[in-house]
């Protein structure tokens, strides 16, 4: 039983990073494909499309920071806390990255046909980013409650 708890603790430590990175990969891939498609159909504004398609990458960075914040000597006392915070924040970061990628793809599609709405079209993606920041900040706050050893 103790071994299982320890394994879960290590999984929780790595989870925010790996799940955040997975979400960012999918999100950036969706938005990136839309950006490439938009570049085929337009003569300018390429940088904007690529820039928007990179937005979901921030969740991987949040995940890495959460992982470092959770890093401490793994014991039976801290493992459950690390597992809980790590897995839950990782899943949340993954989903926000995927949905932000979908928002970015829609923004690119809309802005391509109507460039004047570009800044407004990325607002939904910014909202999603805000929720990812909530997850990130409160994961940091909650990890402060886990003893160092």
């Amino acid at each position, binding site marked *: 039983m103790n071994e299982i708890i320890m394994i879960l603790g290590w999984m929780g430590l790595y989870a925010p990073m790996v799940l955040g990175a997975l979400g960012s990969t999918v999100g950036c891939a*969706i938005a990136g494909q*839309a950006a490439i*498609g938009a570049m085929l*159909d337009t003569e300018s504004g390429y940088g904007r499309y690529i820039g928007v398609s990179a937005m979901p990458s921030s969740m991987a960075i949040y995940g890495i920071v959460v992982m470092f914040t959770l890093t401490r000597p793994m014991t039976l006392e801290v493992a459950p806390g690390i597992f809980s915070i790590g897995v839950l924040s990782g899943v949340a970061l993954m989903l926000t990255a995927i949905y932000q990628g*979908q928002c970015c*793809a829609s923004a690119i599609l809309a802005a391509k*046909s109507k460039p004047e709405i570009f800044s407004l079209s990325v607002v939904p993606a910014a909202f999603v980013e805000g929720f990812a920041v909530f997850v990130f900040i409160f994961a940091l706050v909650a990890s402060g409650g886990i003893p160092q050893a």
Partner: protein
Amino acid sequence: MMGLKGYGYAMLMASLPAHPVDLFSASQTPLSRIRLDARLKQLAEKDALDLMRIEELLQWSQIMAADDRFIVEKSGEVIAAIEDRFLRDLITWRLELRSVVVALRKRQAGFISDARTPFVGIGQWSGHIQKNWQKPDFGLGLRLPWLVQANQLLASGQVYRLEKLLLGVVWQHYAAVGSQHYFDFPAVVVYVLRWDITNRWAHYHAEAAVKRFDSLIDRALAEFVF
């Protein structure tokens, strides 16, 4: 994973220029057929085949070469081969609309639907049309609001305006249902079908439309034509 299925053709859809909001303001298609076909090469093999079948079925001119039995059978085959329910409904809707228009044309041409020579169409309205053959709108005026006007235009010989009305009905339907899909295969199909309509309108001439419709009416006398 979490709704990713709907994003299979993000690049393809983003590479296609938007259709005009108003069909009748379009003087040309958003892109040429050659460029459209080049972009459609991104489709998976099965999707490309499905799209080809759907386009083939809904291309009025190609269907004209066939008889009614072939059309009904082919329609059933194509619809059955499509896995996506949205697309099945989309094709069925279009074929139902054509069935209603065919019924109008056949009645205009003097055909009488009775027990011996019943009207045969595709979709949910065929039985209703047969039962209400003598009613101007086949009793479908409330469900198909454009039908009353279509019947009046056909009766008064305003075939160009009738064609315009029907194209507008189809265009609006595609626009409405297309708003449920943006980056998946149904979105691609809706885009291509709207492209077909834009292409038809862009190459339209009032005179040609009249001639074409006259020929359809002539054919309706002899055979069942969709």
